């Protein structure tokens, strides 16, 4: 049961970590767009 739990948890940790990376990239891009809007 420990191995089963470990496999399922690992799967979702990997996916959530990647989604977090995407969310951070999106937030950074949003800041850059706002900065550009101020400059232009």
């Amino acid at each position: 049961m420990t191995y089963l739990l470990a496999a399922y948890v690992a799967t979702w940790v990997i996916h959530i970590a990647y989604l977090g990376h995407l969310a951070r990239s999106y937030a950074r891009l949003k800041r850059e767009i706002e900065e550009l809007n101020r400059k232009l």
Partner: protein
Amino acid sequence: MKRVFPILAILTAGLLSYGLYGALIQAPTEQTMGEVQRIFYYHVPSAWTAFCLFFVNLAASIAYLVRRNPKADALALASAEVGVVFCTVVLVTGPIWARPVWGIWWTWDLRLTLTLVLWLIYVSYLMLRRFSSSGQTPLMAAVLAVLGALDVPLVYFSIWFFRTQHPQPVVGGGGSIDPRMLHVLLVNWLAFMCFGTLVCWSRYRLEMVRRQVEETQALESLLAAGGSR
């Protein structure tokens, strides 16, 4: 797509939840391996989803090589990145299953080694895209993607044509599976395919916006340089 995306995300979350319920509760316990066999319901659909994403990467790379379409290049990048995430899941869940069943975490079996090589090829592809500043990067990446995709059928058919320690195919290839197990497997595959498609779509949109921002920043720098003269 903006309006449809939240609906698809909710449906996918529902499907993933149903898949999890099926994998943990609905599917019968395998007699030989016991509970640990349930890892199969995440391991196999993740592998199939990774293969599909690498196929999208191949098709988009060929489209880029033929037409030099930047949208195809962005799709190739997005599908490779999400494919690597799913392939990572395969390489992590596989050894977690192998430890209690085989008694070892890893062996240099043909299927396992080819899967690791596949992961390394696409990680190299992403490294190339991330760290090369050449204008030819998309072209070089597309060529690497076409060559790298040759490993996908090798991974898939390795257990059909060679004697390996990896379990034989349960779908096709003469294998058999309990219909209830097959149902749960297919539900999870559908759920992971939907999830992978949504994440890939988000990554594609992010890449397109990132490129637009880069172009605008370059234009703004040019305007600023022109204004200062």
